[in-house]
């Protein structure tokens, strides 16, 4: 067992402290030390995006971030997307549009898609497919996911 390092960080808006080994990824610490199991492990090597979280507002694969690197950073996971029990329009549209089957890729897609729409409220289909290309799905064939993101962007524009 390696030496434990103390890390202070902010997760979903709350101060968080934990002990970890240098080799542990943020993904591992989120799921096993902090019981934030919304973020999923798919490939563990930066290809599938199931582990996507925001680090200082930027989408990253948490399997490729060492937990010690989050010292002083702000982490947002899928658990922060719904606010006070209200689903985000993306979550509503994913459900209404059946944009998931097994659901393992869904948290990663939600984090990436939310970051996309926050950055660009009116993406075209080409932009949606390209910017979400770091998230892989084995079940749906992507079509319903893309339509759900489009529907959510419409819903968010109407709300504003």
């Amino acid at each position, binding site marked *: 067992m390696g030496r434990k390092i103390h890390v202070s960080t902010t997760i979903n808006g709350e101060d968080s402290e934990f002990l970890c*080994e*240098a*080799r542990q990824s943020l993904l591992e610490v989120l799921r096993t030390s902090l019981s934030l199991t919304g973020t999923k492990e798919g490939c563990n*090597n930066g290809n599938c995006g199931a582990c996507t979280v925001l680090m200082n507002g*930027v989408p990253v*694969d948490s399997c490729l971030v*060492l937990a010690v690197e989050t010292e002083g950073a702000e982490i947002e996971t899928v658990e922060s997307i719904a606010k006070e029990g209200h689903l985000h329009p993306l979550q509503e549209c994913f459900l209404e549009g059946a944009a998931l089957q097994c659901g393992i890729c869904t948290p990663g897609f939600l984090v*990436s898609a939310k970051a996309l729409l926050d950055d660009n409220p009116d993406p075209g289909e080409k932009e949606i497919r390209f910017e979400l290309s770091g998230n892989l799905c084995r079940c749906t064939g992507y079509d319903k996911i893309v339509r759900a993101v489009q529907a959510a962007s419409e819903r968010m524009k109407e709300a504003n």
Partner: protein
Amino acid sequence: MRDFEYQAPSSIDEAVALLAEHGDRAKMLAGGTDIIVQLREGLRDAGLVVDVKKIPELMQIAWRDDGGLEFGASVPCHVIYKDEKIIDSYPALTDSAKIIGGWQIQGRASIGGNLCNSSPAADSIPSLIVEGAACRIAGPTGERTVPVHDFCTGPGTNCLTEGELLISLVLPPPAKSAGSRYMRFIPRNEMDIAVVGAGAWLRLDESGESVEEARLGLAAVAPTPLSADEAAAWLQGKPATEESFSEAGDMARKAASPISDMRGPADYRVHLVGVLVKRALTGAVGRARGGDRNPVIPVGINRC
């Protein structure tokens, strides 16, 4: 993976001292998108991981008095391709930064890390070559500078000696009437490793009709990224037309010595070199003449 120690030095001197103390037990950590995978898969070994992201020189973007740019080796791709001035000045580089991995990779991966990983297929290196980049390196005997086309020495190897680390990339001031473009051929639309990558930079003469100077860079067709010097030199003084670019593409083919592997047979890669060099030159001249410099989303008809 096996456990290792972690240190995050806050200065170049501190980093050099750590590397001197730990020798080849120490591995640099910038974005981590290559090294963490390699450590996890046992391809590389580390007793100490040296996180270089707290060293200011490795994370900054500094425009020089001569109009050129020095950016830190660990600046992530997403910072590079969102920077309007970098897009305008070195569009081939931002083309590359936008297509390395995917969005999540670009949130962490750095141009310097891409260079130091030294894959022959690295997407940033042909762009660094054509933009005329130099590598600022620090080590136990002080600092030195290496032109980027001399940096890689073989698949996965480079000129950094023990105890050295890459500090920054230095780019010359952007020239008037110049444009650049990087593109690659991959089987999908994204998230792939280049089967062939081609970068082109050219500067037009006063009339805007002829090539005053050109540079060409190639990925994935040799043990290292290549500078296609003969083809680039031939372009000097030639009209900036489709015919010239086709001819340059044919000449660039002779510089390539690819292998056949799961991504494609060698003869197909040689063929692609000619096609992509012609298209990259076409893209570069378009930008030299005022065309859009924003990174191209390579999907569908714009794939390459």
